[in-house]
């Protein structure tokens, strides 16, 4: 039974054809036949596409101190899906002018975060948020700083069509990938069909992002008994996990996020409809942004949803003396608004907390070849 492939726009006006032999790799054959026939619809034989194989399941490890991962039932993680997702993540074909990929703003060396305060889209316009890091993303059930979407599959739909980002269309992406000499075969290996559409692209992207797991920091090695903290790191650990530093209520061991949304006192005037409030419509959610994980925080500057702080020292000083009262400021960060000197951290204490924060760096994560650009 032939399988129809939609190769919209390629060689308009020519007739469709059936490929009955496969002397060339699939992509090359498609290209050759498309040039001859040119209709938007191609038909492949099963012989041409080769035997269907079952994708190999990938079991994502449940990390110590993490809840169970919720993976959509219609998008199980597979080796083929992950590899396809990796190719797509680094592929500039997803942007209108072929200049930007997901990795343009989510840089592996920066723990898949954006080192610039605001990313520039393909037309050079800045956004107004610092692109989030992608670290242990499999556990995040709401995505974007304001939580506007659910699973990673939903998240991946947005940047491609955002006019301030990749400014493209999903039809355009599908057309490009369907014309690619290899993508149809890669999609067939991952999903059993070579017909590329937005649903499968975001599924593959989500599968790849779920494998971006960081669990080999010094913090992890100390927990496993494989390393020891220095004096400063150990002191910082105790400050972090007691009410003196009081970081742990939002940045929990071992996730270093609570996956929740909070107003951490950055501004005194809270706009109606800002942050989570813009999604839920509740006034009490205005000005709340997603708590980022601190895993690899050393690599993810600048900090906060709007990237306003360049250094960890600035971040610590914000929580020490810079929190501003507002109608939705989180009760967890207002202790020092009492103005009592005994609650203010010393320079030495802040330095030690930062020493501990740097034990959350996982160099194997930012250099892992399995997460790197496959096109290089």
């Amino acid at each position, binding site marked *: 039974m032939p399988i129809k492939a939609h190769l919209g726009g390629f060689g308009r006006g020519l007739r469709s054809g059936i490929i009955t032999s496969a002397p060339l790799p699939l992509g090359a054959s498609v290209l050759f036949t498309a040039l001859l026939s040119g209709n938007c619809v191609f038909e492949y034989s099963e012989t041409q596409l080769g035997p269907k194989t079952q994708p190999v399941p990938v079991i994502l490890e449940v990390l110590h101190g993490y809840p169970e991962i919720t993976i959509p039932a219609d998008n199980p993680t597979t080796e083929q899906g992950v590899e396809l997702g990796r190719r797509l993540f680094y592929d500039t074909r997803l942007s209108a002018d072929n200049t930007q990929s997901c990795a343009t703003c989510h840089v592996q060396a920066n723990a898949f975060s954006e080192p610039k305060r605001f990313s520039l889209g393909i037309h050079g316009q800045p956004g107004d948020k610092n692109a989030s890091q992608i670290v242990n993303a499999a556990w995040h059930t709401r995505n974007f700083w304001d*939580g506007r979407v659910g699973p990673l599959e939903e998240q991946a739909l947005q940047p491609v069509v955002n006019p301030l980002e990749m400014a493209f269309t999903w039809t355009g992406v599908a057309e490009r990938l369907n014309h690619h000499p290899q993508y149809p075969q890669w999609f067939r290996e991952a999903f059993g069909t070579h017909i590329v559409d937005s649903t499968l692209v975001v599924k593959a992207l989500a599968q790849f992002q779920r494998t971006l797991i960081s669990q080999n920091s010094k913090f992890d090695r100390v927990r496993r008994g494989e390393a020891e903290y220095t004096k400063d790191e150990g002191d910082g650990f105790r400050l972090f996990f007691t009410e003196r530093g009081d970081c742990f209520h939002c940045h*929990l061991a071992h996730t270093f996020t609570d996956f929740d949304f909070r107003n951490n006192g950055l501004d005194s005037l809270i706009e109606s409809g800002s942050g989570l409030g813009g999604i839920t419509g509740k006034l009490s959610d205005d000005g709340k942004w997603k708590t980022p994980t601190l895993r690899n925080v050393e690599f993810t500057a600048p900090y906060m949803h709007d990237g306003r702080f360049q250094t960890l020292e600035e971040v610590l000083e914000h929580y020490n003396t810079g929190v501003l009262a507002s109608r939705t400021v989180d009760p967890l960060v207002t202790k020092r608004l009492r103005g009592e000197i005994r609650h203010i951290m010393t320079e030495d204490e802040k330095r030690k907390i930062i020493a501990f924060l740097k034990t959350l760096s996982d160099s194997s994560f930012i250099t892992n070849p399995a997460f790197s650009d496959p096109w290089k």
Partner: protein
Amino acid sequence: MYPYFHPAALIFSLLLPILISTCTSDHGHGPEEVATASIEFNFVHKVGDKPLQFDSVFYKNAAGNDYSVTELRYYLSNFTFYGHEDEVLMQADTVIFINAREPESAKWVLRKIPPGHYHTISFVFGLLPEKNISMSLPLNNETLTMPWPDAMGGGYHFMKLEGRFIRDTGDTLGYLTHIGNLKLEKDIARTEAVNQLNHFRATPMTLHLDFIKNITYQMTIGMDVNGWYSSPHQYDFNADYSVETMSTPEAQNYLRENGKKGVFTLGKISLAPGSTHAH
């Protein structure tokens, strides 16, 4: 709170002791069927006599603080049923987690209650020490924030009650009423070590009820949020002890004693819809 959270109370294990009455199935074969009663618990939260409303409503406590509530999560465990002479008739070795913002998590069904007369019921607020072990309870997005750091003794927050209050000076600040077992080493800031157990057993509440097999009962247990701040200790959010409650033994002591005195009450008991004594 956001609607994506996982539902409901957590039932980790159920140990049923003695006094299980059984009967065979109507057909006289197959597995034995246990003829027991069930209770659908409904946990309700109020401030004084008003239903608790999160975020926007300000209440007044005994110290005169005007305060709102933004979060209320807690553990109850070890539900125990007693006879007339305070003998233990049944004990459910179960830990339940309640997020007061989530109506579904404020319900819990206890099954397999042996028929018989029960005089009182009680439960543990928080966790018994043998259950209060770090990382021993399942984690989900609702319970994720409940662990109590090992640096302060480990285990779990028994309760996180948070909100805002209007300070003496007129500005609005947050308060954190966090209760758990506190263990601190002697150090520069502390002249002696602290090892404080802050779980408690709620005063037994009168049931005086015959549980009949195959009947499901509905039972309401109420928490008065103001009770945490009233008696015997008037708890003031302006006071020093309320700033860092977790590591302040005085605050933990006040909250534990207030909790014992008058936070939980047994409300209405009724038959569940569809349950009749004709069974």
